[in-house]
């Protein structure tokens, strides 16, 4: 049996564990045994993005240690994958040994839809339900621009028989979350978010999906505040047939 490790991310662990359940379900159904190292917490990106580099390094060291013996690591987040793949090696570039360890993790870490695509995993029909639904896809910034993953999630969604993908205007625009940015600069973030919300509303979609729960938390929070009947679902939840 093929084996992979799951890094579930702190947001999913604490706020939306259903996403982790969906990922587990899909990977198991497609023949993977999953290892979930219980010591995992957060990749350290919130600290890194706020400039607390030394503390971020400590969290990175933790994560690197935890997944040291994994064959591969699957993460249902473009943002956390980008942190590990692009920024961990950068954090340790002045320490050859730590750099090697960071690079070792970076190379075997995959964003969830990227992993499915790279491993040529077909979503089993048994996971799909018959309820027709309109889905709009929000490409998260780090997934698209740090990892360069653009088509993988869309191709996966297209294969789900009961899903109709609807376009959203300027979908490549940021939702304005940016971690602590949304708290430090609420007016700027708010303007970016309101444009995103308008575009989603105009699309007449029933579901908004993305590979990153952080964007969905931001977008979903505004939709809920405005009492819009548009549901935010992580892509893993859609692929696992949730509604």
């Amino acid at each position: 049996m093929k084996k992979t490790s799951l890094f579930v991310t702190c947001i999913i662990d604490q706020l939306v564990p259903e996403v982790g359940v969906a990922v587990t379900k899909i990977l198991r159904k497609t023949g993977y045994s999953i290892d979930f190292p219980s010591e995992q917490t957060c990749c350290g990106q919130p600290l890194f993005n706020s400039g607390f580099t030394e503390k971020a390094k400590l969290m990175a060291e933790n994560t690197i240690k935890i997944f040291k013996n994994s064959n591969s690591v699957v993460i249902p987040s473009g943002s956390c994958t980008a942190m590990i793949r692009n920024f961990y090696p950068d954090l340790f570039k002045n320490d050859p040994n730590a750099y090697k360890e960071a690079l070792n993790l970076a190379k075997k870490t995959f964003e969830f839809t990227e992993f499915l695509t790279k491993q040529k995993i077909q979503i089993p029909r048994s996971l799909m339900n018959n309820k027709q639904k309109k889905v709009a896809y929000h490409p998260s910034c780090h997934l698209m621009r740090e990892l360069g993953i653009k088509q993988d999630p869309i191709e996966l969604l297209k294969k789900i028989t009961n899903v109709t993908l609807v376009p959203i205007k300027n979908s490549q625009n940021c939702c304005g979350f940016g971690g602590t940015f949304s708290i430090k600069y609420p007016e700027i973030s708010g303007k970016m978010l309101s444009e995103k919300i308008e575009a989603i509303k105009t699309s007449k979609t029933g579901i908004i999906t993305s590979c990153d729960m952080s964007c969905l938390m931001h977008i979903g929070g505004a939709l809920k505040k405005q009492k819009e009947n548009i549901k935010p679902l992580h892509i893993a939840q859609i692929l696992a047939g949730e509604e």
Partner: protein
Amino acid sequence: MSKIETTKFKKASKEAIKNSKLQNTLTGVMAHFDHARTEAINEFGETNWNDLRERGKIIKTHTIQNLDQYLSEFASNVRKNKSIIHFADNASEVNNIVCEIVTTHKAQLIIKSKSMISEETGLNNALSDIGIETVETDLGEYIIQLADETPFHIIAPAMHKTKEDVSKLFQEKLGSKKISEIPELANFARKKLRNKFLNADIGITGANFLVADTGTIVLVTNEGNGRMCTTLPKVHIAIAGMEKVIPSINDLASFLHLLPRAATGQRLTSYVSLLNGPKASDSIEESEERHVIIVDNGRSKLLADPQLRESLNCIRCGACLNICPVYKAVGGHSYGWVYPGPIGAIVTPVMVGLNKATDLPNASSLCGACKDVCPVKINIPRMLLHLRSKIKEDPPKHNIPNLIEKFASELFWQLMKNQTRLSIAHTIGKIIQFPFVRNNTISKIPFPIFSTWTRTKNLMPIAKKSFHTLWESELKK
């Protein structure tokens, strides 16, 4: 140095966002620029474009790594071309050099073509202090000079002004009649400027590129005013940042493809001037005396930091401003100094002092759109992160938001240190959130920071069971 108002970023940006007229203008103009750039790249072919961007990046990176050598080659070729080269360390040195040339020639009237570096040094004020009239001749610059403002955008300085604003300005400052159409406004300005061109003693321009192996100054313009500034007056002074140098005339074509497409979506600008020495004795087409001032003014600080050096690759096209959601929201003046937008958020803090501009690198969602459009592929988000880290090494003292952030980061680290602590935090969090959760959502928390969030967005409550708990209880096999 020109006036620095970078500490007012937060206040200025809030006001800009509330200004609906400005928001409409920004939306319209930025969409126009972005559309034009996209069209130009589609026509050029995306693969070709990316190959050329890579070439641009390689050339610029190589040049900046060997800047001393290329600057000295450029200087020696400028001298061979019978022009006079000056090196200025800072803003006041630039202004002094110009004032000295002006005094030597007993000049009274100076015409200028667009030069961002003269905005850095506050040159117009320095000249007016010694009683010299300086007239901006780029239409946008002319408008903001009349309005006594600073450029709003690095290539479209007056983009925030509507034609109605300009008409009103011309009536007030130049006594024009009411003009409602743009071509008529341009015509009116052209007539006003014509006299200045013919009577000016000195022309001052910036430079888009300095070619080391030929000593050539390259100017890329659209209005023709740049060419008039370099040919009509007897003396021409070009002022350029030291990063503008490129190794060879053979490299120029790449940048003449990259710059206009990234900037305005043009295949080529209306005018491209390659200036070598002053005029030969039988030519009527050049100035009689040419000066080139190479300026540092903080650039060596960017050069000294390997993480920031790449910012000197910038060819000042403005594409990163046009795509940036933050620039589109707050506009150019909010940034508080000469260079706004993503590239400004890097170079400004280093040039004016990091502690005076802590908002600039922080006010970004790190979406990376700037990196995608940059014609020389500058990794702007990575440099913003580097500056954020540098700010935390020497944070502003007695600053409450900063202390809160420091406390929050320490708390976050303590709670995320290991799984045992995280699971305790999970339990405590659920108890704290209990009074606020209704129907599995939190619509209001009346405490600072959280209340800012819940004003426009509901908050997701902490789940009843974390994934860790679910794994242990149900999923583990």
